[in-house]
């Protein structure tokens, strides 16, 4: 086997792929959050933004083409990310078949220890979210207005609660993931470490708060 074949099979190679796909997903999550904040500008602006996404690339691309390309890219990234996560987790479990009677965790964080569980919550959430606001299969009253579907959905408290839980899981995943990714990529060094930690905190808080603001505002009647 040459090195090009060994790389994705090695533990460092898999971590590298996780870090790259994780950062790609982070880019999406950030853009999606900023776009969603248009909900505060009312139905017209929000639906116009939804339409804009369908029409990006016109006239070279047809309606919805850009969206489909983005979706395929995201699907590939999620697929690789999950594949590596599962493969590495199995490797780690096998590496310690007998655990300790006593454990003392001194440096790891709650976020770092729950990456897999946070990831599983996110994977389930992504499926639910698509069935809820994209295809409408999991929506109680799905119509043609993207804005209307969103407001009607979030008015139901169990729906909002599911979104809130998922966004908190996302924030934790990103708090550890962003910082960890730079270490995995070998792009960290002692001078940068504190800055990367600070950026990780900022991104995790900003993205979680940005997403949370929408269901919370619908529940509070600020977005109607």
């Amino acid at each position: 086997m040459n090195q090009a074949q060994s790389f994705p099979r090695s533990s460092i190679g898999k971590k590298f792929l996780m870090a790259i796909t994780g950062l790609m997903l982070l880019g999406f999550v950030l853009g999606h959050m900023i776009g969603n904040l248009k909900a505060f500008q009312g139905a017209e602006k929000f639906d116009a933004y939804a339409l804009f996404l369908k029409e990006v690339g016109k006239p070279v691309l047809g309606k919805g083409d850009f969206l489909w390309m983005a979706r395929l890219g995201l699907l590939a990234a999620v697929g690789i990310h999950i594949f590596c996560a599962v493969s590495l987790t199995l490797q780690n479990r096998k590496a310690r078949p007998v655990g300790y009677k006593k454990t003392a965790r001194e440096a790891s964080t709650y976020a770092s220890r729950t990456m897999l569980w946070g990831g599983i919550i996110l994977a389930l959430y992504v499926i639910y979210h698509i069935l809820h606001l994209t295809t409408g299969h999991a929506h109680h009253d799905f119509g043609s207005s993207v804005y209307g579907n969103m407001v009607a959905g979030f008015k139901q408290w169990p729906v909002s609660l599911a979104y809130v839980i998922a966004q908190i899981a996302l924030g934790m995943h990103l708090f550890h993931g962003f910082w960890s990714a730079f270490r995995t990529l070998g792009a960290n060094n002692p001078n940068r470490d504190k800055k990367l930690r600070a950026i990780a905190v900022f991104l995790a808080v900003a993205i979680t708060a940005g997403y949370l603001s929408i269901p919370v505002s619908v529940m509070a009647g600020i977005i109607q």
Partner: protein
Amino acid sequence: MKLTLHVWRQKSTSQKGAFETHVMDSVSPDMSFLEMLDELNQALITNGKEPVAFDHDCREGICGSCGVVINGRPHGPQRATTACQLHMRSYQDGQEIWVEPWRASAFPVVKDLMVDRTSFDRIIQSGGFISVRTGSAPDANEIPVPKVDADKAFDAAACIGCGACVAACPNASAMLFTAAKVSHMGLLPQGQPEREQRVLSMVSTMDEEGFGSCTNHKECQEACPKEISIDYISRMNRDYVCASKNKG
């Protein structure tokens, strides 16, 4: 000091082990942790019982032979200290202490608290060397080495290969050990010719030996008796990716 010790006893690799409890009535706070185990063994021998097997050699924190997990912490609670250099004054009178061997499938238990760490030797054999003529040591400063690199290489070379990083890592990963060994040579001019092959071989052996992967928990750095930084892991990742690109 009075202590209640729960010590892991296991006859051999293939047999099942269990904790055995011993109450020790007169432990001196000035004893090292290993001296306390010696005392326990003396009592066991006097009573015609099998003494507890544990690894040790230099007893001055430089050989890397000793190492047990004490109340969940490899080498015990004191920073930058091996179990042989740890003193019983770190514990309180009446305390309960759990003593376990390193836990990793790549470190099978040989007996009681002793584990087989030859997987580390195989990682070293696969690339932790420099192929040059042997003979008398070269003159100092014959090959100029920038001070920053010399310092970093020296910090990495402080690794005594005790395995506490693997023991502490929730994933039983050997990345800190391997990174220290890769970097110690990779940072020096003498290590350059084999730099790429070295990192590729050592990482591949590390994976084959059945160690876990790094998720940057940092527990290894906290447990390392030589305070080796996880920055070396970051450095090894970069080296590995660059070497893969060049040899791909």
